[in-house]
């Protein structure tokens, strides 16, 4: 008796299957995915210092500028960079469609002073 109930249950409950990718996902997506907002950056480098996988790097770029890069391919989405950034220059998002062809495709690169999304 119990097993029949179990088999018939989906008929009562309706469809469990998500409509993704045909429609946006219905799950509550984790808001731990960092998105850099270069105009808010104060260059205190707290993000790069705290990152446990060194996914965030800040290096000198030509003309005295700096290159801020987040390698989503190394990121473990711990959200520590979001937590430690005083001006909230790193937003917490639920973005998850991060896959890309080629290794460079999963690295977000910004030239500070002259913001440019490299992804």
């Amino acid at each position, binding site marked *: 008796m119990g097993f029949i109930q179990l088999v018939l249950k989906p008929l009562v409950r309706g469809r469990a299957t998500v409509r993704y990718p045909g429609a946006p996902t219905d799950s509550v997506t*984790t808001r731990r995915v960092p998105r850099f907002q270069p105009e808010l950056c104060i260059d205190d480098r707290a993000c790069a210092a705290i990152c*446990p996988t060194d996914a965030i790097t800040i290096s000198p770029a030509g003309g005295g500028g700096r290159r801020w890069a987040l390698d989503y391919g190394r990121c473990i989405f711990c959200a520590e960079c979001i937590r430690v950034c005083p001006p909230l220059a790193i937003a917490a998002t639920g973005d998850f469609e991060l896959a890309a062809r080629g290794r460079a495709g999963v690295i977000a690169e910004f030239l500070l002073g002259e913001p440019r999304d490299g992804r």
Partner: protein
Amino acid sequence: MHTQTKAMLEQCPVPLDLRRAVAPNETLLACPAADIARAAAYFVSRGAELATMVGLDLEPLGGGLAIEAAFSLPAFDEFIRVQADLEGGASYPALTPAIPAAQWYEREAKDLLGIDPVGHPDPRRLVLHESYPHGYHPLRKHVDGVAQAPIDARRFDHFEVHGEGVYELPVGPIHAGVIEPGHFRFSNIGDLVLFLDARLFYTHRGVEKIVEGMAPGRALFTVERTCAACTVSHGVAFASAVERAAQVEIPSRARWLRTLLLELERLYNHVGDIGNICAGTGLHAGTARGAILKERLQRLNEALTGHRFLMGVVDIGGLRTDLDARALNEQGRALASIHADFSMYADGIFGVDSFVHRLKGPGRLDAALVTALGGTGVAARASGVATDYRTQHPHAAYATVQPRPVVETGGDVFARTMVRVREAEESFRLVRAILDGLPGGAARTEAGRLPPRAAALGYAESPRGANVHWVMFDDGGRIYRLRIRSAAYANWPLVARAVPGNMVPDFPLINKSFELCYACCDR
């Protein structure tokens, strides 16, 4: 120290030197290397259980190689740690002949540190496969943790069974399904398995070496990824080892929330495992509905903590962020609905006679063997061995939120499945109790100063049994040595013993009934 512990130490036939342990329920003893096996055998004869063994290279601190065996005294919630300095040498008399549970720890220390357990019955390698050169011991302090040693290619050494009609069936390391890698060498006659040699450690990543020199807070991210399915129990074990060394009491809200996380981890694991047992018997409706329940629990994990596997929530000193009161409330209601569906599900699958019939009998293990090999968790409790660190060594808030013990005596696939069903029911009850009684206040405190060159144990009962972490710090509060003893590590030798005498086609089912992680074991 309990009076009986004191009496046990006084009557020990081996001279022991009492040292100062930093954690409150630990007793640290030093003994000559030549006597450690005798001392260990004496403790086990008096009811102590091997919790972990650690090989140490103290050369940068002006010492040499050392070996430590840590024992749990389950009756008094205490631990005895016996350390032997190898006095410039690299060998000691093996514990394994008297304590079979020590077999892997000793082989591992031989691989990783070149510490030779003299008289060990199995001289083969364990962690380092044949590609690693002879005489290379990566956990020695002078060895670079990043550089790759040259490739050596010696033959894989496995046990062979000889006799008329005996054949070998090699399986793995890459398996047919979405499963972790391991190599199983069956020696069979027809369908009957005579002997199983399980070769693991394919996913050995060097976790313990990676964290050496790291501050504990940073190391936690790596430690949590020892195994995703046991991430909370590893996180809690590691964090509590650090806190116990620093002699810090974490706030009671943090203890309760850790208990909540540990039970949520147990729930999605147990429910998923029951679904997988259905897969192993071809009960497809049970597989699908089990997968749905597991997915609902993982979605609940995410709604509550932001992570489907609960990673990144535990921190040294408590929790990284407090859990949101409204989310706790909402998820409490969601959990009640999952609980009702789970109960109906369990009734449903156990109402199928052919399913129950398939589970009864295969993979039987008796209590004596489980105890001798140091089994833990579900596998032990299904064979009548009532071991559970939640009640024997209450951590997190288990002293207040007490689980009712679940023990089965069949020792077979059915008993292990039944333990999971009953424990899942118990976890639903515990989670309810935690949500109802959750204290307020802070969810984190500062860890404080770590004592230089001191070590402490930390532990947590994972879905598969006790995870025991042994952590030692350097002079600057960084990790000097970490030894992760996972429940899977303790239980894998049981699997190899549960299979002989069964049919080859029952192996996947028996293996699933243990449901041990390879990642946890291999590190």
